[in-house]
C-alpha cells in the first residue's frame, strides 16, 4: 500500500515454516469459583491468503484463543502457555512492548459488536487514524488520506464526510465496515474476526462476508474466522477447527469437516442445524445435555457425557482417558475420538449422512 510496508523478513529465512502456527496453546483463568480452563491445547497452522474457521459453541474457548494470539491476556490474571509462531516470531513469550508493536500492525482484530467495540466519544475517522499513527511515523494528513481511502474501499458512501461522524451515527452494518477498515489501516498480515457478523441482519451479513472475501484477495491476508454459524464457515473458509470444552476435537479442510466428519460432536453440530435449502420435516438431530463447565471438565473425552456412540469404543475408556488428536490418512484431517477411524467412517455413512 502506501508508506506502510509491513516489516516482513525475507521469505527464505523461514522457508518451510507456516505463516502462523499455534502449538498446544493453553489459557486458564483463576476465579473465585475455581480455575476456568478455557483453552486446553489448541493446535493449528495457517498460511497467508487462507482462511481458517474456528467453530464451537459458547464456552468452547474460541474467543479466548483469539485474544491469546493478540496477546491481550498479557497483564491480566490469565495463564497462557504453549507457543504461537507468527512469521518467525514467538508471541506467547514476547514482551508486552514487542507485542504492542505487532498489534494492529501485523495482527488486527474485528470484533463481534462494533457498537461497543468503538469508543463512543471519538469520531470514527480519528479512531481509524489512531491505529495508523501509532505504528507509522507519518503526518496526520497521510493517515487521514488512508482512512478515507479505506472507508471508501469497505463501501461507506461519501467517506470524506463520514470520516467526521461518531460511531452512533452509523448503522450496524456501516459500523462493522468501519471496524474492518480500522483493522486494515496498517495492512496487517493476519486478521482475526471474532463473530464478525453475528450481530448483523442476514442481508448485511452477506455484504460483510463478501467484502471480507474481496479484501482478502486484495491484501493477501490470512484470516482466522471465529463463528458458531456453520453456514458462514462453509462459505468463507478453507480449513476448519472444531472446538469443544476448550479442546480441538476435529480439524481439517472444510470439505472433510462438512462431508467426511468423524467426530460425534461434529456430527451432532451438522445434524442440529435446519437447512434453508431443504424441507426437513424430520426431527433435528440434536445433541443431548449441555456443554461442560470449564471449571469441572469431564475426565477423559470432553464430549463423553453427551456422546451417543460410546458403545463403539473397545474397552469403554471414554470417561477415563482423553483421546489424542490423531491424523487420518494423508490430509491434514485430525480427529480426537476413541472409536477407530474405519468404524467412524462406517457410522457416518450408514447412520449420520442419510439424515443430514
Amino acid at each position, binding site marked *: 500500500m502506501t508508506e506502510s510496508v509491513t516489516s516482513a523478513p525475507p521469505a527464505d529465512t523461514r522457508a518451510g515454516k507456516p505463516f502462523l502456527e499455534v502449538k498446544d496453546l493453553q489459557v486458564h483463568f483463576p476465579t473465585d469459583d475455581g480455575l476456568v480452563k478455557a483453552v486446553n491445547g489448541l493446535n493449528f497452522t495457517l498460511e497467508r491468503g487462507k482462511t481458517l474457521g474456528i467453530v464451537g459453541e459458547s464456552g468452547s474457548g474460541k474467543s479466548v484463543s483469539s485474544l491469546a494470539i493478540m496477546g491481550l491476556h498479557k497483564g491480566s490474571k490469565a495463564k497462557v502457555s504453549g507457543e504461537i509462531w507468527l512469521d518467525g516470531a514467538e508471541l506467547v513469550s514476547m514482551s508486552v512492548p514487542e507485542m504492542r508493536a505487532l498489534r494492529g500492525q501485523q495482527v488486527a482484530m474485528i470484533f463481534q459488536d462494533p457498537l461497543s467495540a468503538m469508543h463512543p466519544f471519538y469520531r470514527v475517522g480519528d479512531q481509524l487514524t489512531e491505529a495508523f499513527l501509532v505504528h507509522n511515523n507519518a503526518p496526520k494528513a497521510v493517515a487521514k488520506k488512508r482512512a478515507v481511502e479505506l472507508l471508501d474501499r469497505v463501501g461507506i458512501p461519501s467517506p470524506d464526510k463520514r470520516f467526521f461522524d461518531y460511531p452512533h451515527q452509523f448503522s450496524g452494518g456501516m459500523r462493522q465496515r468501519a471496524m474492518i477498515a480500522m483493522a486494515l489501516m496498517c495492512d496487517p498480515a493476519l486478521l482475526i474476526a471474532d463473530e464478525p457478523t453475528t450481530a448483523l441482519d442476514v*442481508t448485511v451479513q452477506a*455484504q460483510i462476508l463478501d467484502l471480507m472475501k474481496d479484501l482478502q484477495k486484495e491484501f493477501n491476508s490470512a484470516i482466522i474466522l471465529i463463528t*458458531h454459524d456453520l453456514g458462514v464457515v462453509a462459505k468463507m473458509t478453507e480449513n476448519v477447527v472444531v472446538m469443544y470444552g476448550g479442546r480441538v476435537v476435529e480439524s481439517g479442510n472444510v470439505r472433510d469437516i462438512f462431508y467426511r466428519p468423524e467426530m460425534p460432536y461434529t456430527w451432532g453440530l451438522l445434524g442440529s442445524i435446519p437447512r434453508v435449502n431443504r424441507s426437513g420435516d424430520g426431527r433435528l438431530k*440434536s445433541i443431548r445435555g449441555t456443554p461442560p463447565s470449564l471449571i469441572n471438565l469431564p475426565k477423559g473425552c470432553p464430549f463423553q457425557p453427551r456422546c451417543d456412540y460410546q458403545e463403539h469404543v473397545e474397552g469403554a475408556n471414554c470417561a477415563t482417558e482423553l483421546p489424542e488428536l490423531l491424523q487420518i490418512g494423508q490430509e491434514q484431517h485430525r480427529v480426537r475420538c476413541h472409536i477407530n477411524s474405519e468404524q467412524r467412517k462406517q457410522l457416518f455413512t450408514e447412520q449420520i449422512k442419510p439424515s443430514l
Partner: protein
Amino acid sequence: MSTTTSAEQATGKQAAGGELLLETRGLQRYFPVTQGIIFQKQTGAVKAVDGVDLSIRAGETLGVVGESGCGKTTTGRLVTRLDEPTGGTISFMGSDITHLNRARMRPFRREIQMIFQDPFSSLNPRQTVGTIIGAPFDIQKVKSETGTKKAVQTLMERVGLNPEHYNRYPHEFSGGQRQRIGVARALALRPKLIVCDEPVSALDVSIQAQIVNLLEDLQEEFDLAYLFIAHDLSVIRHISDRVAVMYLGKVVETADRDELYNHARHPYTHALLSAVPEADPDAEERRERIRLTGDVPSPLNPPSGCRFRTRCWKAQEICAAEEPPLMQIGAPGHQAACHFPEERDVV
C-alpha cells in the same frame, strides 16, 4: 431418526389447518414521535406495524420472518395484547379482542401464551422454578385437579426438566434448560396458540435443535398453533407450515412453506434467501448471490409506494408512485406485494 417419524410429521403438517384461531386485519401500531418546548405535539410516527393481515388455524405454525426493525416482534406483542394496536382488528376464535380491557381479555389469555427470546430475562431471578411455572395457575386462579405443585412437576417432566428441581432458582440452569422452563410456563394452561418470539436465537446450535424438537413434539401432543417469529430463515423453514415475510412493517410475501422457499416471487424474499449461507461448501461455491445494497430505511419516514424500492434492483417509476397490494400469485395461498414479481432460483 427413523423415516416413520418424518412421515408422521409430514402427515401431521398436512392435517394442519383446522378451525380458524386468530385473524388480524389491517393491524397497525404507530409509535408517536413528539417534540415541543413546553407542550409536546406529535410531529410524526414510527410505523412499526402498518397494515398486517395474518391468519392462523388450530394446530398449524405460521412463521413470521424478517430483519430487525421489520415489525415482527411488535406484531407478536399486538397479537398477545401486550401492546395496544393503533389500527386494525384482531379476532380470536371469532371474538374481536382488539381493544378488550384487562378484565375482559383475561379469559382469552388462557388460550394465547407466549415464549420469549431471552432465556435470562424471561424468568424472574428471584422466583423458584416452581413459582414461575405455577404462575399461570396463580394469576388465572385456576385450580389444578392434582394440585399446583403436582401439575408443575408433571409439566417439568414433560419438557425434559428434572421435577426434583422444583425449588431451584433460574440462575442454576443453563440457557437451554431455562428456555424449557419458559415453554413449560406457556404450556401450563393448555393454550390453543403460543406466540414464540425468537425462542431459539439466543441458544447454542445444539441446544437450539433440542428446543425446536421439543416445540414440534408438543405441538403434536397438544394440538398447538404457533406464531413463530424469527430472523433465521432456516429455522423458519424447518418449523413452519406457512410463512409470512415482513419488511418495514408490512407483509411483502406469504405462502405455504415449500411454495415460498421454492417459488418465491418478491425480490426481497429472493434477497433474503440468497443471503443465508448454507452449511455446504460445494453449494456455497456454486451459488449466485443477490447483493443488496444499503440499509433498511427508517420506519419514521418509509419510502413512498413500495417500501423495498430503495434497495430493489427492479424498481421503476411505478414503484415510487404506487404501493403494490398483496396479490394472489402462483399456488393457492401464495401472495406477494410486488409490481414486478418473478420466480427465481435462489436457494
